């Protein structure tokens, strides 16, 4: 998921030359702390916990290989997942360690505004996926999002979507891998290459052996570890602060005149909040196009949902995910706020402000708070949570890449009629290939760090337009194959065009983001809004000018042509729509509480 600065679940780093071993108190001079080669030291118990984790995930992969024989097993986990397993996996695939650390850092930088990416930037989209879109993904029996585009719009739309998704997924995976390795180097003093190879080979082994089944099982394990490892920071932090009010008072004392603890009341103008963003961009850019594009069309997450055992489970899975997603700020945003309350002002700085005197970036706030509170054993659990998060995100990337490459590129273009066993074999090799390309990307980024910004931006180019294309395809019978393809292409190219325009001429920001005071994140939100609207407009216009498919070909794909099973025979408390309503009410209550 995109960060406020437009980056999707990753951190950016400049390697500090000097790092410190211990954490400072407010009274301790920072210079005293610059001495040793790493921030935290692990005990033998901590190391044992980390090693046990690696043994467990590999053991699960080896164990599940015997249950992964067919393509349906390998690529869709046999479509046998319960709602809980699919829901937790759906969330865990998104909850990478870089997501954890990056968003904790964003909270340290921007305050509670960062929680928008977990609430308005996620919950409505997840509920839309559950109630409106899942029936079409599930009933069409597609194996992927590009697969749905092929059924609805034909090969050109599938090819455009499959190549862009496959390419960008492994690149993103490599960037995340590099960023994680740098964290482990800075925090623990671990060698970057060792971290990259050990963690990625582990993922390659367990996903290659057990496919999506193994990825999902491990994601549930990783989800538990992430929560159990990170939750304590917030609990102990609130104890130290004397509760929420105590923490807010400390933040106000440290940063007088600045508001880091309200969600909406500072969003009336670009200059009134630390993010330099307006509520229009948050609601329509983030809440509509970016979040709905990501949560409803990014195959990395959708794949987990369509692996559910029946339609009701598939609809419940994103709702369960949404319920937990609403709680994630407690383990991600709150540590960032606690950092504002307890860390010395200026201890963490922006990436471009790091120096010998200030080596630590905002993104390190979560491991730093772990070091502040955790003793032997608990620190190992905390670091395991970060590694587990990274591996769940990477496994999500490579399993989705493997499926899209095998079904939507290899089978569609190179070999249409091979045996099921052949495609499973290709899927296993693709997993290894995906990991190797990711490792290559990690080393490439190590040499040319500016690549990161372009790749991140490139990924975002596809999200907003794809949402418009898929939603129109599902909801409007009149949408034609030509309309879908040209709309997607126009939305994507216009997004790239706007990005290049602002790169070439920064004053263009006043046109893209509607204000010369807008900051980078506002530009990203507005760019998504415009590219989504362009996609929808072009799709509608071209569709009206071209011949639609007959309704008989739209069965199972489009609203009005698809018989969706009624849930009227179920008790109210078993209906997905009921639980979606409960989540929606809690979501609104949270917005009011933190208004």
């Amino acid at each position, binding site marked *: 998921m995109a960060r406020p600065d437009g980056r999707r679940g990753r951190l950016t780093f400049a390697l500090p030359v000097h790092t410190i071993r211990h954490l400072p108190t407010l009274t301790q001079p920072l210079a005293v702390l610059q001495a040793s080669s790493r921030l935290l030291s692990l005990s033998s118990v901590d190391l044992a*916990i980390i090693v046990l984790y690696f043994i467990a995930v590999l053991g699960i992969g080896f164990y599940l290989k015997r249950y992964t024989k067919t393509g349906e097993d390998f690529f869709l986990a046999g479509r046998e*997942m319960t709602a809980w397993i699919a829901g937790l996996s759906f969330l865990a695939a998104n909850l990478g360690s870089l997501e954890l650390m990056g968003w904790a850092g964003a909270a340290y930088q921007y305050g509670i505004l960062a929680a928008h990416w977990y609430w308005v930037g996620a919950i409505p989209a997840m509920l839309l996926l559950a109630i409106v879109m899942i029936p079409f993904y599930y009933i069409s029996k597609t194996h992927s999002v590009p697969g749905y585009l092929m059924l609805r719009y034909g090969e050109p739309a599938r090819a455009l979507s499959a190549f862009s998704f496959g390419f960008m997924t492994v690149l993103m995976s490599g960037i995340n891998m590099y960023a994680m390795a740098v964290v482990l180097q800075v925090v623990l003093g671990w060698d970057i290459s060792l971290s990259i190879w050990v963690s990625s080979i582990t993922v390659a082994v367990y996903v290659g052996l057990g496919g999506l*089944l193994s990825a999902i099982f491990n994601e549930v394990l990783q989800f538990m570890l992430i929560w159990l490892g990170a939750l304590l920071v917030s609990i102990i932090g609130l104890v130290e602060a004397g509760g929420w009010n105590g923490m807010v008072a400390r933040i106000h004392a440290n940063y007088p005149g600045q508001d880091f603890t309200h969600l909406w009341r500072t969003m009336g103008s670009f200059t009134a909040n630390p993010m330099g963003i307006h509520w229009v961009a948050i609601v329509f850019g983030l809440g509509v196009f970016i979040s709905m594009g990501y949560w409803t069309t990014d195959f990395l997450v959708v794949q987990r949902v369509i692996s559910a055992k029946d339609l009701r489970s598939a609809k419940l899975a994103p709702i369960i995910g949404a319920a937990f997603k609403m709680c994630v700020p407690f383990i991600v945003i709150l540590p960032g706020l606690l950092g504002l309350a307890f860390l010395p002002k200026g201890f963490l700085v922006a990436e471009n402000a790091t120096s010998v005197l200030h080596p630590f970036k905002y993104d390190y706030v979560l491991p730093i708070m772990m070091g502040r509170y955790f*003793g032997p054993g*608990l620190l190992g659990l905390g670091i395991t949570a970060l590694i587990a998060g990274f591996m769940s995100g990477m496994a999500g990337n490579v399993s989705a890449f493997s499926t899209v490459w095998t079904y939507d590129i290899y089978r569609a273009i190179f070999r249409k009629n091979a045996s099921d066993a052949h495609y499973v074999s290709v899927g296993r090799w693709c997993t290894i290939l995906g990991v190797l390309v990711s490792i290559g990307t990690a080393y490439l980024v190590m040499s040319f760090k500016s690549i990161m910004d372009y790749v991140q931006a490139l990924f975002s180019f596809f999200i907003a337009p794809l949402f418009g294309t898929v939603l129109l395809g599902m909801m409007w019978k009149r949408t034609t194959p030509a309309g879908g393809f040209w709309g997607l292409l126009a939305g994507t190219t216009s997004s790239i065009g706007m990005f290049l325009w602002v790169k070439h001429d920064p004053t263009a920001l006043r046109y893209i983001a509607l204000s010369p005071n807008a900051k980078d994140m506002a530009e990203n939100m507005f760019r998504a809004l415009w590219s989504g609207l362009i996609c929808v407009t072009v799709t509608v216009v071209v569709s009206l000018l071209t011949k639609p498919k007959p309704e008989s070909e739209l069965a199972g794909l489009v609203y009005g042509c698809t018989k969706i099973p009624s849930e009227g025979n179920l008790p109210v408390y078993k209906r997905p729509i009921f639980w979606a309503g409960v989540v929606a009410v809690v979501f609104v209550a949270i917005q009011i509480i933190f208004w």
Partner: protein
Amino acid sequence: MHRPGMISIWFFIGALLLIYGILICGAGIFEAATTPTAAAVAQANLRWEGVRNLHIGIWWGGLLIAMGAVYTIKFAPRKGK
């Protein structure tokens, strides 16, 4: 998911949590029972001073043991299932 003979993922999770709980609780007890060395005192000064009095390792480790035991027993593979 349920396939004949397949061990539930919750069993794996329970077993790992149980082992983690024992390790973390043990480390917490050891930390509480030993007198801090000069080095440890120095390190504690760099952290929140009150954290040592909370004995977090013991009760969080205990929580993991309880959770792990429940999951391990409830989802243990059994003959005939």
